[in-house]
């Protein structure tokens, strides 16, 4: 479980995070939802240690991360896997070498054979067992995201962070990536935090959703509760999507859950 206590962050007097308090639950896909410029990515960077909050603290399973000793921070960081928005694969390495890299650097007790077995397993898990010898420049955006996930889970991470995993992907590939993140989270019981503004992801994988607005947490709940949330800013955000509006219409007419309204039905409306 990751706990965020009163995290504040500002840049040149512009306060981006205004005292965020939230909890990311273990074994669940926790979504940080919000529009552009609401501080989702800044919060994520504060959590993983790429930025230091001005005020507040972050704890990982009871161990304080912010302002702790370097050794303890390193220990926590080694349990973190992260999928970046642009995948952040190392250009000079093949796909397999990218996945092997954290094992080589962090798990020095592993033999080369064990590392290669793990790489093969991880690539197979994300459906890229035949892409190991390719360079990142030779694979598609969706494949890069899969490699990013494989690299993140390779060292048996406890916490998985995904920064807008669907950005730049077509809807079908986005759904596949969402499904993969969801499956991996539940399969390994890890704490996953996904930064997104994609309502499809909310419906697909939102076990626990935190809605940020202007640097503040306005709402949290799950995907079944979100449509009935009585927060005007959240409603405005959700129903800005014509697809969701259409799905809601189907939902009202059929008196069923949103999950029952398929994308096809929504499009037909």
């Amino acid at each position, binding site marked *: 479980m990751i706990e965020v206590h009163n995290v504040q962050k500002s840049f040149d007097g512009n306060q981006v995070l205004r005292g965020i308090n939230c909890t990311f639950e273990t074994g669940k896909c926790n979504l940080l939802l919000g529009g552009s410029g609401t501080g989702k990515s800044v919060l994520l960077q504060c959590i993983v240690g790429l930025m230091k909050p001005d005020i507040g603290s972050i704890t990982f399973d009871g161990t304080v991360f912010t302002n702790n000793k*370097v050794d303890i921070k390193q220990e926590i*960081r080694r349990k973190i896997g992260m999928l*970046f*928005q642009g995948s*952040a*694969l*190392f*250009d000079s390495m093949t796909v397999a070498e990218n996945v092997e890299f*954290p094992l080589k*650097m962090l798990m020095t007790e592993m033999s080369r054979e064990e590392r290669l077995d793990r790489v093969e397993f991880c690539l197979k898990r994300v459906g890229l067992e035949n892409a190991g010898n390719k360079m990142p420049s030779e694979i598609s955006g969706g494949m890069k995201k899969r490699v990013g996930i494989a690299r993140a889970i390779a060292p048996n991470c406890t916490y998985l962070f995904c920064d807008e995993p669907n950005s730049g992907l077509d809807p079908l590939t986005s759904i596949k990536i969402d499904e993969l993140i969801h499956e991996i989270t539940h399969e390994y019981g890890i704490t996953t935090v996904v930064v997104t503004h994609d309502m499809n992801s909310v419906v697909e994988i939102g076990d626990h959703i935190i809605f940020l607005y202007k640097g503040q947490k306005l709402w949290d709940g799950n995907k079944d509760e979100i449509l009935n949330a009585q927060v005007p800013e959240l409603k405005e955000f959700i129903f800005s999507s014509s697809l969701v509006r259409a799905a809601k219409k189907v939902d009202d007419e059929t008196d069923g859950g949103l999950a029952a309204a398929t994308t096809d039905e929504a499009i037909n409306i």
Partner: protein
Amino acid sequence: MVKSFGEFLLFIQSMLFRKERFAVLWSRTVDECIIIGVNSIFIVSIVSAFIGAVTCVQIAYNLVNPLIPKSTIGYMVREMTILELAPTITSIVLAGKVGSSIAGGLGTMRITEQVSALEVMGINSASYLVLPRIVAAMLMFPLLVILAMSLSIIGGYLAGSLTGALSAQEYIEGIRTDFVPYNIVFALIKSVVFAFLVSAISAFKGFFTSGGALEVGAASTDAVNNSIIAILVADFALAAILL
């Protein structure tokens, strides 16, 4: 400027503090030695051979007094090459080639979040990415300077002989006159200092790039400009201190 210098010192400190495992750094250093050293042999060879040749021809052109022996041309080529041209010009050439490559490479890694990926994994990115480059440069620059010295003197020999400015015997007599071995040591000390300046300044510029492709280009340009200025300032300082 003072702020930038302070940030530069902190950057160097962060690289030395919490270093990665020796085996990892060694492997990275060997890779960088190939990129910085072996891949620069061609350009250094061409530049130094022609500089030696041009130096020889131009000295011969200016040395019209019949009372001065022609072997002086060889002597002057040697002195200029060892003391100044080989270490300084080679380092300036390498500032263009290696410096821009280091700044561009690190800048691209920064804007594509590869540096962040290393940090998130708990790897000291400065130590992993920058330290091997600096060590490799400090190992390779002196070797390239030795190569440049040799080829420059050979270039002068060929130019002198082919143009008829002086005979081969006169040239060899000149380059053997009043040889001071310390000058070689001085040149190598200079090359190590220049290597550090070029690699560290370029890495600093690249490592803290923010923005996009344009900023990466700007960081490369800044890296080369600042490295060349640093080389020239250090050249003067070392000459004043060590000679």
